[in-house]
């Protein structure tokens, strides 16, 4: 970065914004102000850059729009389709992103507030992106009686987060679920979609280590 910093004719300044910032900073230090010709050139560069970003953005928008249109087209004929469309969106993204919800509102002609009203009412719909891995503790009554509370405490302390949260590195998401219907295997946890039954709190560390190993293997 330092290599871009030396005072130079504005002509071949890199488009890298940190280089631009360094340049402006060094000029300010040397002259106490940014010379007119330099600031003009920089703002031209920024304009170009913004235009490019807008183009990227609009392409993203069209992707989102196309996706949303597909979902809507599939359910267009059905009455009361909003929840089913939201299910499709959540299956695709793992949560309901705001841009998608906005696009859906335009596409269906339904107010955004009404869409959010539905999303926030149902536990199943998420507004935050999920972590790379998910650990879910079943909190059904059978699991509760057989010690799901201890499992949850162990997970909380090992991960340093509460249920419904994701670790700061966005790797592991901890959640609870009402009942997964595997009461015969209580207490149960679900690790990345795989149900593990008769779990003891001493086994938690092993499960987490397994997930972390998977993460490193991917990296």
């Amino acid at each position: 970065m330092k290599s871009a910093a030396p005072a130079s004719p504005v002509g071949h300044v890199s488009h890298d914004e940190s280089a631009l910032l360094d340049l402006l900073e060094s000029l300010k230090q040397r002259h106490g102000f940014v010379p007119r010709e330099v600031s003009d050139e920089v703002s031209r560069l920024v304009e170009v850059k913004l235009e490019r970003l807008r183009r990227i953005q609009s392409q993203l928008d069209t992707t989102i729009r196309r996706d949303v249109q597909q979902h809507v087209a599939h359910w267009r004929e059905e009455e009361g389709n909003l929840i089913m469309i939201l299910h499709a969106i959540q299956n695709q993204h793992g949560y309901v992103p705001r841009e998608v919800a906005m696009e859906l509102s335009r596409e269906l002609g339904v107010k955004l507030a009404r869409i959010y009203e539905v999303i926030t009412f149902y536990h199943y719909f998420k507004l935050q992106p999920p972590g790379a891995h998910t650990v879910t503790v079943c909190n059904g009554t059978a699991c509760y009686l057989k010690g799901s509370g201890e499992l949850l405490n162990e997970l909380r302390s090992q991960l340093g987060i509460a249920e419904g949260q994701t670790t700061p590195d966005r790797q592991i998401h901890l959640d609870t679920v009402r009942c997964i219907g595997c009461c015969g295997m209580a207490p149960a946890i679900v690790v990345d979609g795989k149900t593990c039954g008769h779990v003891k709190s001493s086994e938690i560390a092993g499960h987490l280590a397994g997930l972390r190993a998977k993460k490193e293997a991917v990296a």
Partner: protein
Amino acid sequence: MKTLTRQELEDFAANPPANPPEWIRVQLDTGGIAAGAEAVHAALAHEREERKLLFSLQRAGSIGYSFADPVIEVQAPGMPRIHYGHVTPELVGQVIEDHLRDRRLIDDHVIATRQRAVTLDGPVTHLLVRDTGPETGSKTEFFQFSFTEELKRRGLAERVQVVRALDIGVYEEGAVIQLLPSGVTYANVLAPDVARIVAESIEGGRVIDDLLWKTPDRQVRIVLRNCGDVDPDSLDDYLRRASGYQGLRRALFESNPEQVIAELKASGLRGRGGAGFPTWMKWQLTRAQPAPQRYVICNGDEGDPGAFMDRSVLESDPHSVLEGMMIAAYAMGASKGYFYIRAEYPKAVERIERAIRQAREQGLLGKNILGSTFSFEAKVRLGAGAFVCGEETALIASIEGRRGSPSPRPPYPSVRGLWGMPTAINNVETLACVPAILTRGGAWFAGFGTETSKGTKVFAVTGKVRNAQLVEVPMGTTLREIIYEVCGGVLDGREIKAVQTGGPSGGVIPVQHLDTRVSYESLQQLGSIMGSGGMLVMDKTDSMVEVAKFYLKFCVDESCGKCAPCRIGGYQLLQILDRISRGRGSAGDLALIQRICQAMQRASLCGLGQTAPNPVLSTLRYFGEEYQAFIEGGPSYARKVSRGSASPAKAPERTGTTPPVNPTPSNR
């Protein structure tokens, strides 16, 4: 695609197909899959391929033995059908070599049949043995050894194999043995009886009357009739082997809608979702309402924690539920139906969607079904994790794509339901009963059960019970019979304290009422409800205050917030319970709890709020002394209970660490 005709359906009924002589069925429901049933199925398929074997490998739903997942069922020629539990891919080779090739059963995996016989037919080939005494299993090997030696002595060891069973279906009755293939079962067998059994029963072919276990199986499988038998992914299997859609055929061609409703009336079937409203009346009311369009909804939003009957039925026998829905639609003149299923049950959703697709391809859904004038279309709608959506009006709002807030009744859905049209909402289990009633008659169904509650009920028995499983028993069976005779009693031989039925809307039933005969009314009298059929067993170590708090927390989390009694009352109640469970309650708290509970029961808008206080009220009614103990014992007692060093059932020791208390707190 060729569609099914009425004639073909009649032929299926007249000529049931012959089963292949040799098959293995893997029970692939969510519980089984979670325990590794897919891997077992894959291993079996691989071995079959590898060794070029001819046995038929089939997929099925679950018979309900959740405690032994994954479960497979094996049929070898000339042998009875055998269930194996806790099967692993490593065991597959043994199943093929020992069982299919050598006709030998595998130790420690056999689940004995519940179809016990009282007469011996044919020579004994296998002898199952299991010690069910106080130290369960400790003498099993001894008896296996004794029987083997005795058989050797008499030169019968080649003919009869002695096998240790995983589960023998009789509990707390000492050493139990079962003779196969007949299923004659002896209980409380002692060492001197070994020679007698070998001499008289195995050699002589006579039943020994004083050892014979005569108690028949408590279970009657009507709803679960096909679960674990048919392939849930195959319409063909359902049609041919389970006399599928014969109930629909009878409804369409041998009766009119009024007669179908009359048949339901004769059966006495009441809603299995919990409230117990007569099903025929619901259909009649919906039918009587003039409207251009009527709907039928199957409520599969099984939100009670600890209940999995509906999931199991949808996963194991989806076509039965669909057939039930079609008969309901025909009876009330509906042309559209919705399955409302929890999104947390992906397997159930997948299988019911496949069932609908198959039915449509075969012309069982659509216009003029089987050439009749009846047209029907079914669709699936997913729940999204809201317990309150199990309530009728909230469920309708959710299908319409709105927040699942309940609305006041009347008008009832049978008058103004989905999109303002008359709608009948039936539980999964209710609909699964319907085809059986139509094929076998309402009177047959009414032959089971009690005066007011007819038929059978499926319970998911979980918690501190030895064998967590699905149980289907006639109404009127006692709780003790369900827990001790069918499910093997309490885990680790501990003492039972209470049974919770009905989930968060139900209550606890203490041990002194265990001999209550199960019916809608009897459970209500005890302050609980039938509910959808979750049955939770609690032992002496479980704190009732904590249990009440757990259920209440559930209801508070799930309250939609529309009406004040539920929203505010529930929250305040939870605060008080929390205070009490930390040992910081005061003497007036119990009276306050009563008042809040009454307000919630009377003034809440829907069933969720009206029933949310039930767990609190019933624990208070039967285990008031536990609340007292927390209030009197103070924080130090509460800490002891949470650490497990004090029993929640006993009042605290009045030592110097706890302040002296007045025995009657109302005087304080």
